[in-house]
């Protein structure tokens, strides 16, 4: 919802100004960060462990080494051992040929032992609906884009029943749209809970957010004939949706006038639980089913905008 307000404010431009400032911040001792987002695919699964650092520290994070990392299928009690062969804090599990990580409908437990502490977490693996198609909409040039242009839309339908949550990832010519403002998540077919838009085609802002919309004007068309676009629809647990929702809120801090709409900065909730209450930890553990579609933009998938 607030996303929509942002759109408005950005579109209107601002008369305000931003200046980079130096501001002293309170420091804290480092603690463990867990980056564990696994997918129900045949790809190598990665869990990254490292430590938090001062907010303005732009150096590489300190890796957490010599950890024991295991993910267990709760139903079958199958363990998946993650190892860090090259001592860089990235623990991996490599599937055998034809093997896929996890089974739909099963729950997974994560256990990490490091620095004398134990951390645990759980996640459920649920199915993702298929992506029916991807189209490119033709638009006449406007105030923001100086030529006739195309934006992309993916077409898929939310599963029936409230509370299905998704993360849509977009790759344009193999480059991942990974900026915080490009986080594209859905609660059912809409933005958030409490105002359910259940079992519809994903609403337009979500459908079109797979496009790398230009942030500066004048700009060129985000897509040209021959461009490759891959869209992945990850069916993430509701807690993971909320985590990303919060990450987006905490990281996408719009400049200028949009600051009027900003919430106070707060922590993104972690689902990693230390067995010792005095230990702090951040990060997230999630398992997700993924459906994907990849297309090359051509006359086949270009459509005119639906007339009013």
């Amino acid at each position, binding site marked *: *919802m*607030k996303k*929509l307000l942002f*759109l*408005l404010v950005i579109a*209107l431009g601002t008369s*305000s*100004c931003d200046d*980079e*400032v130096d*501001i002293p*911040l*309170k420091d*804290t001792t*480092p603690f463990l960060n867990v*980056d564990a*987002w696994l997918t129900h695919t045949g790809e190598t699964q990665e869990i990254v462990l490292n*430590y*938090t*650092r*001062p*907010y*303005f520290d*732009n*150096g*590489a*994070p300190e890796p957490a080494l010599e950890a024991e990392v295991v993910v267990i299928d709760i139903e079958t009690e199958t363990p998946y051992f993650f190892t860090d062969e090259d001592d860089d804090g990235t623990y991996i599990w490599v599937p055998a040929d034809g093997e896929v990580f996890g089974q739909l409908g099963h729950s997974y437990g994560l256990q990490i032992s490091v620095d004398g502490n134990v951390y645990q977490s759980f996640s459920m693996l649920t199915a993702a609906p298929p992506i029916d198609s991807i189209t490119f909409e033709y638009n006449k040039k*406007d105030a923001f884009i100086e030529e006739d242009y195309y934006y992309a839309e993916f077409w898929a339908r939310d599963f029936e029943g409230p509370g299905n949550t998704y993360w849509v990832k977009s790759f344009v010519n193999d480059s991942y749209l*990974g900026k*915080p403002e490009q*986080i594209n998540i859905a609660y059912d*077919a*809409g933005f958030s*809970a*409490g*105002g*359910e838009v*259940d079992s*519809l*085609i994903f*609403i*337009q802002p979500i459908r079109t957010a797979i496009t790398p919309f230009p942030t500066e004007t004048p700009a060129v068309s985000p897509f040209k004939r021959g461009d490759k676009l891959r869209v992945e629809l990850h069916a993430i647990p509701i807690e993971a949706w909320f985590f990303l*929702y919060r990450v987006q809120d*905490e*990281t996408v*801090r719009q*400049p*200028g006038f949009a*600051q*009027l*709409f*900003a*919430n106070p*900065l*707060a*922590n993104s*909730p972690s689902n990693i639980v230390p067995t010792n209450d005095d230990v702090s930890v*951040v*990060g*997230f553990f999630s398992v997700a089913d993924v459906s994907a579609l990849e297309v090359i933009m051509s006359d086949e998938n270009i459509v005119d905008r639906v007339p009013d």
Partner: protein
Amino acid sequence: MKKLILTLLSGLFLFSASGQEKFTISGYVRDQSDGETLIGATVLIRELSSGNITNVYGFYSITIPPGEYSVEYRYIGYQPIQKSVSLNQNVRLDVELISTEQKLQEVVVTAKPEDENVSSMEMSTAELDITTIQKIPAFLGEVDVVKSLQLLPGVTTVGEGASGFNVRGGSVGQNLILLDEAPVYNSSHMFGFFSVFNPDAVKDVKLYKGGIPAEYGGRLSSILDVRMKEGNIKNYEVNGGIGTIFSRFAVEGPIARNKSSFILAGRRSYIDVLAQPFLKNNDLDGVGLRFYDLTGKTNYYISDKDRVYLSGYLGRDVFKFDANQGFDWGNKTASLRWNHLFNDRIFSNTTLFLSDYDYSFQVGETKDDLFSWKSRILTYNFKEQFSYFINTSNELSFGAEAILYRFKPAEVLGVSDGEESDISLDERKSVETAIYLGNTQKISDRLSLQYGVRLSGFQYLGEGSIYYYEDTEEKGERRPVSDIGEADNWETIQFYSNLEPRFSFKYSVNPSTSIKGSYNRMSQYIHLVSNTTASLPTDVWTPSTNNIKPQLADQVALGVFKNFLNNQLETSIEVYYKESQNQVDYIDGAEILINRFLEGDLLSGEGRAYGAEFFVKKNSGKINGWISYTLARTELKVEGINEGNWYPTRFDQTHNLKVTANYDWSEKWSLSANFTFITGTPNTLPSYRYENQGYTIPGVLGRNNGRIPDYHRLDLSATWYMRTIKSDGSPKKLRDHWVFTVYNVYARRNPFSIYFAQTDDLSVAGQSVTQANQVSILGTFVPAVSYNFKF
């Protein structure tokens, strides 16, 4: 409770029963030139050295023993009048005072009795009359009621671009804003840059920060009572102005001479018109950022004893980026009032009003993909107020009020690829009622008391779903719904009631010094829900429910008031302490806009605010103006936020200094300046960072754990009065003047907030670069010119 009322009543009988036969002098005090009634004019019986002041309708009543009296009527900026009265029966004496303000240059800081600061019962009030407001250098040269009030002690704002204002550490939603007694839910145009009150139609503005009389209630922090002009009953008059950002036009005049008059005032902004040539592309048709408002009032003297008023306001802001997309909001109010004199000593006012506040929001380029949201609050009110002027020592006020609220939080339609989904929320009805009784009593020449009690009640009514929530293990997380019930139409889901005692005293140490103190309890049954840095027009109002308890506040204040140099210099020092309960705050990540389960995202806590307010004002002379300084603190303690410890609110400002000065240079020129210094407001700053899925995520220790840099600003203005005399020496009918202003003269980039974000750059280590950015809503100085006329 009963005991208290009994004591009050028995006290009253005592007063009225005592003494010999008495007669009453009563009537209205008006301005001779246009017939406007004068609020707060002094009526003094010289022989008794006692008297009264006129009420908000300009009425006074004094009951004294028979005899020969000389009655004096005084009001700053007017020539005093003395009348001789042989009092052997009740006397009706309507008086018209002649303004001395023929030269516009003479500044009147407040049009009130000279020693009101010291002599009046009131404390913790801020009052400005329109002449003063017009002198203050204003943003874009547009005089503004609410902005002017922010120059007085105890009144603050979060910054440019924030709607509303904060009083003694209260939030924006804790102010009751009344326009001719009808509530205005959003007092701002264009994100707080202007207020909704058209200065051409405003007669009197009074802000109660404490010591609030029993007749007012419903909000914790303050009551802003704005009274509209009635309209010139003698002659037609046109007022207007052409400014940089909008134009104003007002017409007033008699409908029937000395019987009935009207005023109609309108404003329309034209940034959108001016911006049109700068929009590069014709595709931006329909882009708009504009507002307009229309204020009207008429009144009719039915008889000596009866007068009716009808007033209305209509205002709208539109903020669109094309013809179909954008948002807009507006207030509509209408009030019908009837003043009736039962006899010379009992004055009554009956008010019926309707207030309609709505906003809507729409996005979507086609009919097949759109999202539209409308929200609305309808308020219907009936209010009956009585003033009983018992004798020179006692003035009793009592009355009752009933308000019906209809909240329509969201009428929402989402259309995706032609399929519709209606996600509207239930309408909510509630009724707020109150009865009150208060007395102003003069115990001796030195000691006066005002005391009273207000009994308020609130019913949260069906129909609609009733939600019940489970508690979470840790506070500060979203509470899940445990059960949903259904209520029938008009069924009471929840009832609350509160007893609100009010008390204040004034002790005159000597004629130029007094000490005043007050205690009041306030309750608030409707809540403004907003978790953004600034208050916004899209903020949601919600009633108290089975899950949201009414807010309560207790405030004590003590002040010393002293005037010097024959009342030319007024000073005051006030200290206050306020405690509040059931303050609303939010879980991190609360979804407050369209959410049936909003109550599960709300947290409840306690608040405390305390401070000292210093005020020095020079009332007359070539150089006049005031200095206002507030030292304050305001904090909240909410389980689930900041580990349950006290934290300062977003509008906590330790030091708040305002200096306003006018210099009347010549007949033609007058110069004004104001300077503001405010301690930087609290902000939540991060401590650490970590990466997850490529995003650099900030980590926070506590809420509002740092502050943004201090705010300071100087504004200047010059007013150039045109000739008032024709070349042949006869007076000109047209009075006009130009106002030149520069806002933020030294172009300071005052911070509104500081935000932290990762940039698009990568560091040598391959990590995203984080930085802090300071946002200034106004980055430079803003010059403006406006032309104002009256004929």
